Each structure stands twice: as C-alpha cells, then as structure tokens.
C-alpha cells in the first residue's frame, strides 16, 4: 500500500519525460509534405483499389481451389439495408455507432461477413476476415474465484475481457453470486476470431466450442436475482437460469396450440429478487427454479 503512490508518481515522471521525446520527434516531421500526401488523389483511391484487387484475387483463388472459408455468422442480425463500408478496409474498430457493419458480397451470392461492429451489446460481432486481425490465439486466464467487479473492469482488448463479454452475452446476472466460476476451460489456449468494438465473442473456445462462465451459488440467506424466462423456449430458459447459477426443474402442461409447444408458460419463483431461504438442491448446491413448459396435448 505504501509503495503504490510512489510507483505511480514515478510513472508520471517517466511519462512526462517520455512525452517530451515524442513531441520533439513529432516536431521534426514535415507536416506540410504530409498534408500534400493526404490530399494527393492517389491516396484517395489507392486503398480501395488495393482492397478491390485483393478481393478479386482472393475470390479467384477461392473459386479455382474450390475453397469456401468458414463463415461463422450465426446470430448476426439482418444487415441488409444497413451495409456501410467503413474506410475501405474495415479496420476502423472504433467507428461511430452508425457504422454498423461491413458486409461484402461473395460470388455465390451469400453475404460474407468481413467485419461487423454492432453497437448493441449482446449481439454477435465477428471479425473473421479482418485484414489486420484474422484468427488469433490468446491465452485464457484463470478467472476462477474472481469477483465480478474485477471482471467488469477489464478491457475488451484483453483475452480475459473476451470472457467477460461472453458473460454479458450470455445474459449472466451477477446479482446471485459474489464470484464467478469458469466452467470450461479454466485455463488454456483459446482460438478466437479477433474482436472488434462492442461485443467481442469468443469462438472455438475450449474443447466444447465455447467458454462458459457461471455465477457461483449464492450464499445462504442472500438475495438472488431470478431471471424472467417466461416466453422463452425450454432450452433457452435452462441456459439463462443455469448461467445465473440456478438449477432448473421442469414441469409440463398440455397445450393444443402447436406454436406453444416447448415454450415456458410459467416459473417459480417469479422473476425478480428472491430471498434464498429455501434449501439448495442436493446435486449442485444451487438454488432451483421450476419452469412449466407447454407440451403437445397428444403426448
């Protein structure tokens, strides 16, 4: 505790000193020449021309070789009508919110996701063919036992932050527990597609394809937050409740409406804050939520 202020003051001193060097170096740059280059016509078209040529060559090679790159574009909302090329190369990760997506068209007519940035949290963001990023390898840190506040403070650039965003993307609510538990993998090398602004999403994490973070069981007597799962499908409700650290028990109710089959009709306890006063389930130590799922009346 006593060393910290001294260390940070030292960093301030180093930073201020280093800034002088940078300013001196910047002062030596001939900005007038740079200005002419900025306004030179060739620079206005060189980037797009190179990008277009590269795309043509890549497509030609792909057609010749018969390769079709895997395009993990699941859950990407419809971007038709919202296509907005950004900067020609799609590498402006921090573009304004209106730059919602960069989508290019492939020869087979399927929209190929080159890069996407969605301003809405929780949506899929992918960067499969990012010219600077591409497929990357990161090491997943051991997050077991870390407090949620620690996770939330992480930057989206860090590998661990990718896990953090997967928590948010899974709709996990930390209100039910003070710590998170990494289900899989606790530690290891994760192969991911590089992230972009907004909601990076891990891909191909671990042996089962994804990294799952789960809230630890709440302490006895504490208040837990029960998500509202009425109207969800059974699988979705189980996922949401499980990610919130709750066990799920299922009951059924017959329905003659085929459209309602598999839909959660009710839950107990009701959504909202609930005092965890009931005994936890025996198998996992978690608290249970009962959901009522509609089934076909004939079954």
């Amino acid at each position: 505790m006593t060393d910290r202020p001294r260390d940070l003051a030292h960093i301030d001193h180093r930073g201020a000193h280093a800034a002088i060097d940078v300013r001196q170096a910047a002062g030596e740059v001939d900005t007038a020449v740079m200005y002419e280059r900025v306004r030179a016509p060739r620079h206005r078209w060189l980037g797009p021309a190179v990008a277009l040529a590269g795309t043509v060559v890549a497509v030609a090679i792909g057609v010749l070789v018969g390769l079709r790159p895997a395009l993990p574009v699941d859950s990407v909302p419809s971007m038709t009508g919202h296509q907005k090329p950004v900067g020609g190369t799609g590498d402006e990760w921090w573009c304004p919110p209106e730059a919602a997506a960069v989508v290019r068209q492939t020869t087979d007519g399927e929209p190929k996701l080159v890069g996407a940035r969605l301003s809405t949290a929780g949506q899929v963001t992918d960067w499969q063919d990012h010219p600077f990023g591409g497929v990357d390898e990161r090491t997943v840190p051991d997050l077991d036992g870390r407090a949620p506040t620690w996770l939330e403070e992480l930057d989206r650039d860090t590998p661990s932050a990718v896990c953090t965003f997967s928590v948010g993307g899974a709709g996990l609510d930390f209100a039910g527990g003070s710590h998170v538990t990494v289900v899989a993998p606790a530690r290891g090398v994760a192969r991911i597609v590089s992230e972009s602004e907004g909601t990076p999403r891990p891909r191909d994490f671990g042996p089962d394809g994804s990294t799952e973070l789960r809230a630890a069981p709440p302490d006895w007597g504490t208040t837990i937050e029960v998500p509202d799962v009425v109207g969800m499908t059974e699988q979705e409700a189980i996922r949401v409740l499980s990610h919130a650290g709750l066990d799920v028990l299922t009951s059924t109710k017959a329905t003659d409406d085929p459209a309602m089959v598999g839909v959660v009709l009710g839950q107990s306890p009701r959504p909202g804050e609930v005092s965890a006063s009931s005994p936890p389930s025996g198998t996992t130590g978690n608290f249970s939520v009962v959901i009522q799922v509609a089934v076909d009346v004939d079954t």
Partner: protein
Amino acid sequence: MTVQAGAWSREVSVSAPSFADFYASEVRAVVGLAIALTADPGVGEEVAQEAFTRAYRDWGRIGDYDDPGAWVRRVVANLAVSRWRRRGSERRALARLRARDDRRGTESLHVVDHDFWAAVRSLPRDQALAVGLFYVEDRSVADIAACMSRPENTVKSLLRRARTRLAQLLDEEGLA
C-alpha cells in the same frame, strides 16, 4: 435584421470546419500520439497520415462530428495497435530463429525513452490510448473521456490500471 443575424449565426454554427484548418490545428498532436503508439517516428508519421487521409476522404461526414480530432485519434490508435500486433508475429518468428528473447521489438525505436513507450504499447488498446492522450497531449481526464467516448470514471480506471501496470513492467525491466 435579427432574423438574418440568427440565420447567420445558425449557419456558422452548423458549418463544418475546413479540413485545412482542422489539419493545421491537430497534426502535431496526432503525429505525436502516433509516434508514441508505434515506437517509430517514421511509422508514426505514416499512421497519422493514413488517419488524416481517411478523414479527408470522408470529410463531409467526419467534419460534422462534434470532435473530428477524437475520430482521427481513435483511428490512429487502431492503426497503431493493428500494425504493432501484425508485427508481433514477425518479431516472434525472428526471435525463435535467433533463439533469443525479442524484448518486445524495441530494436527499431528511435524515441529516446523507448522503454516507457514499449511498455505503453504492451497495454490494452484503451489503456494505451488513454496514456498517450494523458502524457503526450497532456489532456485532462474529461478531455480523454470525450475523445474516447467513455465515461470519466472509466477513463480514471483505465489510467489507474495502466499506471499500475506500467510501474510493474518498468520495475520488471529494471528500469525504475
């Protein structure tokens, strides 16, 4: 007359600044930031030039932003980090071939206090940009928050963690 005055003032308030004025007022600071984040004055100049080129190319839109300079700085940070990461694999391959530690690729640095900026570049992008704006441009937390489109508390947190990490890194390097 009052109507004309109002119309005139409204016209002035909504008109975008000329790119030349914008460039003249921002270029030095942006180049400095780019140099800090790329480790090399030549590469920094190139990155800054590319950022301004993109701004110029789409000035009709970007010039209407509240702070076009913030947009250019964010592009600089993205380009700098992209290039740094892209060079990372090359450095690692070179290090393997030479069977020795690469030391974060400081071989091409021309900036005098390169160890500090090398440590900065090892930070996450947000932290690196915040540190660059804080030290190179001597901006306040409020200014950095506006530039990064982040809450002030987030910027404070970024700077706090960045400085703590820098202290660790520089101590590890035996440079403190």
